[in-house]
């Protein structure tokens, strides 16, 4: 698929929503996507946090019913759907999970957040999800601040990142750029980044939802295909991602061709140093 019309749905959530209210919220947002003939819609992180799933997590054994429901929504809107993330009560704790559903309502794949906030269990697997749109990597919330996650997905063949995002307020555009924008540039993989806005469970979130591409693929060279007009209002951002142009950017500036694999063999050691003792221990062995 050379060109893909996508939507980043910038919206809030209310953890007090009943299941019916929650479904109405999703359906209402997806109606405008259907009107715009969008092929892919992405909701923000925590979109699945409502009465049944927050704070204890939706029971994993009940997911089948929920996924049928989400499949119905994807089918109604005739699009691929990433319904944000939701707390799921798994064996090892509450995970923050996202899904990709096809326009036929079929579940194509799942992804758990790998760097969840405190109190949540991290996912332990990562892979792009094959779909008719290409291979879709889902990068949830804080995972966008970890360049290794975007790199792994890109090396696994991701054509597109879907990013259910939630940036704490106050909004700093540079903080947002330091996340997904730079991962898109570092790997030359486009992204649909949907930001949570407003208050959720006592915390404020703000962000500008965006469709992102390698700078070479955007006419103004910014790497932003489309962006929300505000960082705090509900809005559906639509745009077209040109996967042919993406391939062209990779060919003209082949970042992955310059990997230094021998040097990278030292990375495991580096990670152990960086995460075991940030600061003082790093400098041990440094001469004075």
């Amino acid at each position, binding site marked *: 698929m050379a060109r893909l019309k996508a939507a980043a749905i910038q919206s809030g959530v209310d953890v007090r929503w009943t299941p019916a209210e929650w479904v109405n919220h999703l359906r209402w947002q997806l109606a405008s996507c259907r009107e715009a003939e969008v092929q892919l819609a992405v909701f923000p992180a925590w979109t699945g946090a409502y009465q049944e799933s927050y704070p204890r997590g939706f029971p994993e054994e009940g997911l089948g019913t929920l996924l049928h429901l989400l499949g119905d929504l994807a089918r109604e809107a005739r699009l691929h759907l990433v319904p944000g993330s939701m707390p799921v009560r798994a064996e090892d704790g509450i995970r923050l999970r996202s899904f990709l559903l096809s326009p036929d309502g079929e579940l194509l794949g799942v992804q758990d957040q790998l760097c969840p906030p405190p109190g949540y269990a991290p996912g332990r697997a990562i892979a792009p999800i094959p779909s008719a749109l290409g291979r879709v990597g889902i990068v949830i919330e804080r995972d966008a601040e970890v360049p290794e996650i975007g790199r792994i997905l890109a090396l696994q063949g991701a054509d597109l990142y879907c990013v259910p995002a939630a940036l704490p307020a106050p909004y700093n555009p540079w903080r947002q750029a*330091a996340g997904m924008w730079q991962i898109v540039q570092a790997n030359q993989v486009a992204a649909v980044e949907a930001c949570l806005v407003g208050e959720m469970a006592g915390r404020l979130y703000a962000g500008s939802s965006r469709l992102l591409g390698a700078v070479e693929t955007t006419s103004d060279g910014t790497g932003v295909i489309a962006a929300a007009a505000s960082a705090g209002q509900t809005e559906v951002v639509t745009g077209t991602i040109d996967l042919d142009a993406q391939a062209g950017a990779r060919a003209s500036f*082949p970042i992955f061709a310059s990997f230094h694999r*021998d040097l*990278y063999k030292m*990375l495991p050691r580096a990670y152990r140093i960086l995460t075991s003792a940030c600061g003082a221990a*790093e400098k041990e062995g*440094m001469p004075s």
Partner: protein
Amino acid sequence: MTGADLKIQAARAALWWRSRPGPVAGMIRGRGPTDAPEPREGRVRVAAVQVRATLSRTAVEFATRMELLVRQACLDGAEVVVFPEDNGTQLLGLLPGLEEMADGRCVEAAGMAVAEVIRLASPFIQRAFHTTFRELARAYRVWIVGGSIRLAAEDGRLVNVSYCYGPAGEIAGRQEKLHLMVQEEEWGFSPGRELTVVAGPRIGLAFPICHDATYFETFRLAAAAGAELVAIQAANPAEYKEWYARRGIWPRVQETPVYGIASHLVGSMLGMVFTGRSAICAPLALSPSGDGILAEASSHDAEEVIAADLDLSALADWRARHPLQLPVEVILRYLPACYEAGSSRNCAPAKDGDQGQKQRQKELAGQEHEEGPPPAQPVGEQESEVEIEERQAIQEEQEERQKTEGQEQGGQGEQVGGLGVPEDQHGGAEGSPAAGEPGDQGQ
């Protein structure tokens, strides 16, 4: 002896004469610190020098220009002064007739093989370069990252290499460019093998080159080796575009909390036009405007020196309060194998990946309709025996590592610090236990 041989001999003689160290040392001696501000406790003042490219016909001409820039930086109180990539390439002007031959055209278009030119001029431009910066560092009692120079190394490899000079005029460290551009590979250059960190003035300093800043891996390695400041030397032969430029050091400093310097070569040289805005960067929270910029050149095409204070206490405090939270287990399970698989973006065997996702889909979608208890973990994430052993091995290694870390780091030789690939470790001695295990690649 052929005519060509005679020309080469004549060129060597001219290079030798023009690169003599005596006049350079004589010009610099007697210069030195002026009324520069005193260093402040817990802070280091650094300068990025944006150099306008000009071929220098003699070492003295080059040194005179460099001296002016170092003086300017030191007057502003800088303790570390960073020059750009290809700063030493300006010394190719020592080669008689080069400027005329390449005027308005690239060297290759002028019918010259880049490798031949570098091999011919290498010993002489190296002599002029070292003399200039050793003398300047000593005279001004400052740390200088001299920018890069293209040389034939002792082992015959062509390298794009930078040197860091200490305030006693010593060579404190050497850094070859690690990630080469395609054109550099076509010219016959080889990548460096290790990343160096030197103990600068109260600060760990790494000084990789240009394209190295495209890769977060460089900064992870630098920080692990003790860098608090990563000084990138850049020469970008392309039209200036703000957001293209922002792909370099700025995001790297946000991902791996260090201070960053980018020093750019600008202007025309050897048929190429270089652009860039030099900058001194910091993690967002440590920059007054919240944009990650401490200082930035006012233009992308003019010579300029910028300087800023780096607050080491603030960085240490930030690191302590916001330690890197990385999913190390996941990273080690996947990333080494992905690198090994090559650059074709196919590290996850498609069938395995697809089957894994489909199996998870089936389990999740159909759980309520199937008999028996739900799986303990989502399908595709259950650890195999091999994975369990690997995880345990990593944990044991971590514990062992914590015990012996000081000893290991102290044993990195006379190079002040750094992470590299010793010859005997090529092939994966340091690779993660998961590297090369196809079972770890898909779900």
